[in-house]
C-alpha cells in the first residue's frame, strides 16, 4: 500500500515550488506596480471635465471588474501571441486590479476635505500643483491600507497565470503532480506557502491601517 503522505516526494517538489514561488512574487510585484499606477490614472480620468472621456473610462472599469480575470487572460493571450506569457499575465492582472484600485483612489480623493481645495484656491495654487502637492499626498496616504488589501488579493489570484503557462508556483505544482500521479503533497505545500506568505502580510497591512488611524 502506498504511503498517503510521501516525504521524499514532498522533498523533491519543494525546490520546484519555491522556484515557482519566486515567479509568483515577481508577478505580484509587477502587477501591483501596473495596478497602482494605472488605477490612479483611471481615477483621474474619471474626474476630468470631459464627459467624452469619463463615460468610456467608466464603462471600461465596470466591464473589466465584472468579468473573470481568467477569461481576460485567455483572451489577451490568444490575441497577442507574440508577447511572453509573463508579460501578458502581469499586464492583465494589473489592469484588472487597476479597476478596483481606481475606486480606492476615487474614495481617497473624495475623502480629502473640501476646505483643502478652497485653501489651495485661496493661495492661488495652479490646478496641477494643487493635485500634486495638496490633494494626492493626502488621498494616497489614506488609501494605502486599501491598496495593500488589494495587493494581497492579487497575490492570491496569481495562480490564474498558470492557465496561460506562466511558470508560477501552482503551475509547477500541477506539472509535478501530473508527472508523479500524486497531487496531495504539492498542493498541500502550495496552500501552506500561500498561507505563510499572506497571513503576515495581512497583519502588516492591519498595522499600517492602525497607524494611519483607520
Amino acid at each position, binding site marked *: 500500500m502506498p504511503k*498517503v503522505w510521501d516525504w521524499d516526494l514532498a522533498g523533491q517538489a519543494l525546490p520546484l515550488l519555491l522556484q515557482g514561488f519566486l515567479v509568483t512574487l515577481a508577478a505580484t510585484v509587477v502587477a501591483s506596480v501596473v495596478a497602482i499606477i494605472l488605477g490612479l490614472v483611471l481615477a483621474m480620468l474619471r474626474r476630468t471635465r470631459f464627459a467624452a472621456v469619463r463615460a468610456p473610462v467608466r464603462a471600461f472599469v*465596470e*466591464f473589466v471588474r*465584472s*468579468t*473573470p*480575470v*481568467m*477569461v*481576460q487572460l*485567455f*483572451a489577451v493571450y*490568444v*490575441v497577442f501571441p507574440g508577447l511572453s506569457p509573463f508579460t501578458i499575465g502581469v499586464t492583465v492582472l494589473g489592469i484588472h486590479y487597476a479597476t*478596483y484600485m481606481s*475606486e*480606492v483612489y*476615487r*474614495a*481617497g480623493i473624495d475623502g480629502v476635505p473640501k476646505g483643502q481645495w478652497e485653501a489651495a484656491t485661496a493661495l492661488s495654487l495652479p490646478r496641477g500643483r494643487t493635485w500634486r502637492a495638496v490633494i494626492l499626498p493626502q488621498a494616497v496616504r489614506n*488609501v494605502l*491600507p*486599501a*491598496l*495593500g*488589501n*488589494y495587493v*494581497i*488579493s492579487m497575490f*492570491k*489570484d*496569481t*495562480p*490564474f497565470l*498558470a*492557465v496561460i503557462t506562466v511558470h508560477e508556483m*501552482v503551475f509547477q*505544482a*500541477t506539472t509535478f*503532480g501530473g508527472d508523479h500521479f*500524486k*497531487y*496531495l503533497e504539492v*498542493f*498541500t505545500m*502550495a*496552500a*501552506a506557502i*500561500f*498561507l505563510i506568505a*499572506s*497571513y503576515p*502580510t*495581512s*497583519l*502588516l*497591512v*492591519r*498595522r499600517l*491601517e492602525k497607524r494611519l488611524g483607520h
Partner: protein
Amino acid sequence: MGSFLSQLSQSWGNIGSALVITVEGTIGGAILALVLAFVLGLMALSRFVVVRGVARTIIEFFRGTSLYVQLFWLYFALPVLGFKISSALLCAIIAFGLNFGAYGAEVVRGAINAVPRAQWEGAIALNMSPFQRMRLVILPQAWVAMIPPFNNLLIQLLKSTPLMSLVTIADLTFEAQQLRSATGQTAWSYLFLLVVYFILAYILTLLMNALESVAKARLGRGTGLRGIFRMRPADPTGKSLGAGLAGAGTEIEPVEAANLTSKTMGAGGPGGGGV
C-alpha cells in the same frame, strides 16, 4: 465573424447547458457560502474563546490560501486521502462555499458589530434571551448592511467559476473554448464569453439591489426602486477581498470584543469598560 455566428447558432444548445452549469456552480457555491458565513461569523462572536478560535482558524485558513489551490486540492489531492467527492461540480461548489464562506463570515461579523449597542440594550431591557436578541433585533438590522458586501462577493464568486473548466466541468468557459476550436475565431469567442459574464454579473447585481431595497424599506429607510439599476458598489477598503485576519471588515478591539461577547450572551450585560 460570419462563421462564428453560424457556429454560435449551432452550438446554442450546448451553450445553454453550459450556462446552466455556470449558474449552478455560482448559486450552489453562494448558498453554501451564505450558510458558512453565518455559522462562522456567529461563532467568531461567541463568548467562548475556543469557539472563537476554531472559527478564526477556519476563516483565516480559507482566506489565506488561494481559491485556485483549494479547488485543486479538493479535486486532485483529497482522493488520495480516501475521500472522493462524487462529482467535479460538487467539488467546485464546496471549494467556492468554503472560500467565500470565510470572506462572508467577516461580513457577517462586521455587520453585527455595526449594530449600535443601544439596540442590544433595548432588547435586554425587554428581557429577551440572547438568542431572541440576535434573531428578533440584531440580525434583521445587520442584514441590510451585509447585502452590498455580499453582492461584491457574489460577483467575485461568479468571476471564479471559470475555474470549473480546469477540473473538467463543461461550464461556459469550457464551451467557449469548444466554440473557439470549432470556428478558429479566437477573439470573438472570448469576447462573447466576457459579454455573457458581464450580463450575468449585472443580473446578479440587479437582484441584490432589489433585495437591498426591500430590506431597507423594512427598516423604514426606503429608497424606492430607483436604486436598483445602479452598478455594483465599489469596495474602496479592499477588505472584502483582502487579507487574512487583519484586512477583515470592521475590526473589533479586544476590549470591545469582551463587551460584545457579553452582549451576545448577556450574562449580566455588556460588562462596561467600553472606552
